[in-house]
């Protein structure tokens, strides 16, 4: 039996660069209250930063400013991060990260590649008018 109750918390932020700090603070509070190891915190911070940046970049092109809901849920060994928003249909994991090796490093794809490399599972679905992007990652608790 899983001895850890699921701890679910969420935050609603605008899809603007300036909201990134609020999101980082939210993650920090969550990591501290759930005793998540520092190395995993750094990975999670990077996953969240890259995902958030991708979402707002695609929205910015259309001046499509709206809210994004970010939910964190963990059970002692796995954390699930869910981004959902009402933007135009956008699948952050559709980019072919195989281009990385041959692409000049300063051109596209690095963010997606980082997300893929640090995550254990990724899932995108369109639910009605919402994009729902889920990232799953195993983590360890602080000693």
């Amino acid at each position, binding site marked *: 039996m899983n001895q850890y109750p699921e701890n679910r918390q969420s935050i609603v932020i605008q899809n603007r660069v300036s909201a*990134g700090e609020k999101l980082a603070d939210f993650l920090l509070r969550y990591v501290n209250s759930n005793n998540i190891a520092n190395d995993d915190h750094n990975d999670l911070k*990077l996953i969240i930063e*890259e995902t958030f940046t991708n979402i707002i970049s695609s929205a910015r092109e259309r001046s499509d400013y709206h809210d994004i809901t970010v939910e964190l849920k963990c059970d002692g060994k796995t954390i699930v991060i869910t981004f959902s928003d009402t933007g135009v249909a956008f699948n952050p994991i559709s980019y072919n990260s195989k281009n*990385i090796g041959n692409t000049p490093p300063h051109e596209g794809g690095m*963010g997606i590649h*980082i997300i893929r490399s640090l995550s254990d599972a990724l899932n995108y679905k369109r639910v009605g008018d919402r994009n729902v992007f889920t990232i799953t990652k195993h983590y360890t608790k602080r000693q």
Partner: protein
Amino acid sequence: MSLEVVIISEANNCKRISISGELDSRTALDLQRRIDVEIDASVATTIIDFKGLNFLSSAGLRVIFKTKKVMDDINGEFLMVNLQPQIKKVFEIIKAMEGMNIFNSQEEMDDYLASMQDKVKKLTDHDDRYY
């Protein structure tokens, strides 16, 4: 969290860019603007000192790679030093360690720079002897 950038001129047309804090989508543009002002064709060596940097995202990587390209285009040197483990990990993820001059410590970089200076001196002495 913010980014602190300190750019100082060192001997032999060298610029050291020391960055502290977090280099991400919120701070990358600030760093790029500072670099655009300071790094030009007169710079022979650009050093990025990561000692105080504790977070780096792809937005920051783009600034770093763009700076490397600028230095490559003017046949200058681009060196990186004092990367913390979590910073080095980001470079390793995108397989960008190859072709980069990355030093674990100031001493290691100083040795490299000294050897480069020796090579230049030897070439200059050789030229002086024959012209």
